[in-house]
């Protein structure tokens, strides 16, 4: 058992750090939930891709460096420590790409991945529907067979980034007669500017259009944009949930950097005797370190070919609650002025963002059910 990096890994870290120091914009980009900010972040993705930093863990042929999970973690630590811009491509990279690697065709990978890596195509996810949030089996949007492809109809919602993104991916009911609600779903990709697609941006709590509703009216999708076999969408979507997706959804580097910034804020602002705040800052530091080490353990297991399975539910509950507590502590450190939405250092925007953590990617209530049932073996509830 060790926490040692190889000389190669150290060199990789040094290379990333040097490149980031030279290239990270010295003033923050505008919020990526605005048209202007989205464009700026897309340009940054192009810059990252130009130096092959946008998808380090992918094979070289698609724009990556074939980096191990550990190198990816190293890169993420450096990325967040450098206070580099948020990743506007993350939905595609974290959610769609693993599925394409496992279930896509060579043609699909060659066509989709390089453009994803370069930021030329920004992807939005289209999972949820108004009556199918945590309960994806209740999906009602349809894919109907058409000549050479499928026609999509229905409504998707909570589609992150869709206000400005180029394409989307999601599950559609292709066989309404299937014997179980999880069957008869098909995994498809489609363009957000295709005929029949209407995108209605939705403002999150602070009013920024962080997601959108999608209205689909006979949207044609060619067969080449179906991932896996038609009707097998549920299995396709779930099969990558136990791999490193659980690990890559929120990298430890993000929380380590945030805990460092919080510590600096505390050292700058707080009365050192104020143990109430000190204890909360310490808990954020401890939580970030715990998350880093937990991830190192999981990376070690993945490197030996194990699956994470339901353990990614532990992960989700932990980081989402850590993130909120960390930001609440920062706001309390800011004292009476903490209600300012445009406050220094983006803590207020980070706080609003953190509040979504226990909701998306499977609510924490669902995650706790999974932990109780699959890790502890308690009886299934009525869920």
């Amino acid at each position, binding site marked *: 058992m060790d926490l040692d990096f190889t000389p190669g890994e150290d060199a990789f870290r040094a290379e990333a750090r040097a490149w980031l120091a030279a290239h990270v914009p010295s003033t923050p980009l505008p919020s990526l939930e605005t048209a202007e900010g989205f464009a700026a972040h897309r340009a940054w993705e192009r810059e990252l891709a130009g130096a092959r930093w946008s998808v380090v863990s992918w094979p070289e042929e698609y724009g990556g460096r074939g980096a191990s999970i550990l190198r990816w973690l190293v890169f993420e630590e450096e990325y967040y420590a450098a206070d580099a811009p948020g990743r506007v491509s993350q939905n595609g990279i974290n959610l769609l790409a693993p599925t394409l690697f496992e279930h896509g065709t060579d043609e699909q990978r060659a066509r989709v991945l390089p453009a994803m890596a370069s930021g030329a195509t920004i992807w939005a996810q289209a999972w*949820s529907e108004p*009556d199918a*949030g*945590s*309960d994806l089996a*209740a999906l009602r949007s349809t894919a109907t067979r058409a000549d050479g492809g499928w026609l999509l109809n229905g409504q998707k*919602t*909570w589609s992150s980034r869709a206000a400005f993104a180029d394409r989307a991916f999601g599950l559609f009911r292709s066989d309404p007669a299937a014997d179980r609600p999880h069957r008869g779903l098909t995994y498809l990709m489609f363009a957000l500017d295709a005929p029949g697609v209407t995108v209605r941006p*939705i*403002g*999150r*709590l*602070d*009013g920024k259009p962080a*997601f959108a509703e999608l209205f689909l009216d006979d949207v044609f999708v060619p067969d080449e944009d179906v991932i896996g076999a038609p009707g097998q969408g549920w299995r396709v979507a779930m099969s990558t949930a136990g791999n490193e997706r659980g690990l890559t959804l929120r990298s430890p580097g993000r929380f380590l950097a945030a805990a460092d910034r919080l510590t600096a804020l505390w050292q700058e602002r707080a009365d050192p005797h*104020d143990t*109430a705040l000190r204890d909360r800052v310490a808990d954020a530091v401890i939580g970030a370190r715990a998350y880093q080490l937990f991830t190192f353990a999981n990376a070690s297991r993945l490197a030996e070919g194990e699956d994470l399975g339901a353990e990614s539910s532990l992960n989700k509950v932990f980081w989402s609650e850590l993130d909120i507590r960390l930001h609440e502590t920062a*706001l*309390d450190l800011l*004292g*009476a*002025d*903490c*209600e*300012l*939405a*445009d406050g220094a250092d983006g803590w*207020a925007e980070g*706080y*609003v963002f953190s*509040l*979504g953590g*226990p*909701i*998306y990617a499977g*609510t*924490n*209530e669902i995650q*706790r059910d999974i932990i109780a049932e699959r890790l502890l073996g308690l009886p299934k509830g*009525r*869920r």
Partner: protein
Amino acid sequence: MRFLLDAEQTEFVRTLDRLLTAADTPATVRAWSAGDHTPGRALWERLAAAGVFALAVPEEYDGLGPLPVELAAAFVELGRHAAPGPLAETVAVCALLRGAGDRGAAKEWLPRIASGEAVVSLAPAGSYALDADIADAVFHVRSDGPAAAVGLAVADGHGPVRASLDPARRLARPVGGEVFVAGAAARDAMRAAADWAAFATAAQALGVGLALVERTVAYAKERTQFGTAIGGFQAVKHRLADALVGLEFARPLLYGAAVALSPAGGPVDAGREIAAAKVACGEAAYAAARTALQLHGAIGYTAEYDLSLWIGKARALRTAWGTPSSCRARVVSR
């Protein structure tokens, strides 16, 4: 002892509830947040006509007060409906003018506050005033001029307007203005004003928390997932139960502070009672907001769904006019 609202007070609350419901307050709040204050000013006048602001104004200045119990009851209702504007600040300005010993200023402003004609605001020392951009008078403590000019002033301008996590709250620093009360009298009046502001803010926060629970209960009964109303899930039920426990034990602290502020309040330290009420109401409302957001899921996280009006307000009121830390310090101060 009878530690309950009487029939008249209960009826007053019902009247306000009807008034605020009829006024489509959510739409008024959204207009206010967007910088259109016309519907908000109209609501303000209706609230004044119902007697809300007169509760903080003495009879000699055309008011009915100060009547802290009725103020608490009214401000719970204002919070329940997420009413916009410098509400707690108005109560505080009344306390300021009652205590500052300047009959001229009192005579100039109090009757117009009671009637709803004037909208006023107040900034804590060195900090932001709510709605400084639209108030007819923004009171503050000047500490920027020569020693002779330090004291209470009505600002003659304000800094840039800044956004709050509650979009209905627009904050700006007041600047300048002629000092009309200086020295210890100014300090004492400002201290009393801040106590009344904390008191009214606590009441608003309690109302915000109650609304969040009410709305979430209604949503949980209707929203189905996995084939059943989510309100039937025990995790949902227990979170809402805990939110209610927090609010129902904050409520008596609020009215305890109201009694302490009453002329017959006796020897109780009103400041300490207010601090206890402020921290309890603020924390209970914030906990209710976290619960409401989590149980609504994504829809609760959107600005266009009305729940957001209360979620942002719960966060802002938690620290306005007394952070939880400063309130706790006061509760155990010797």
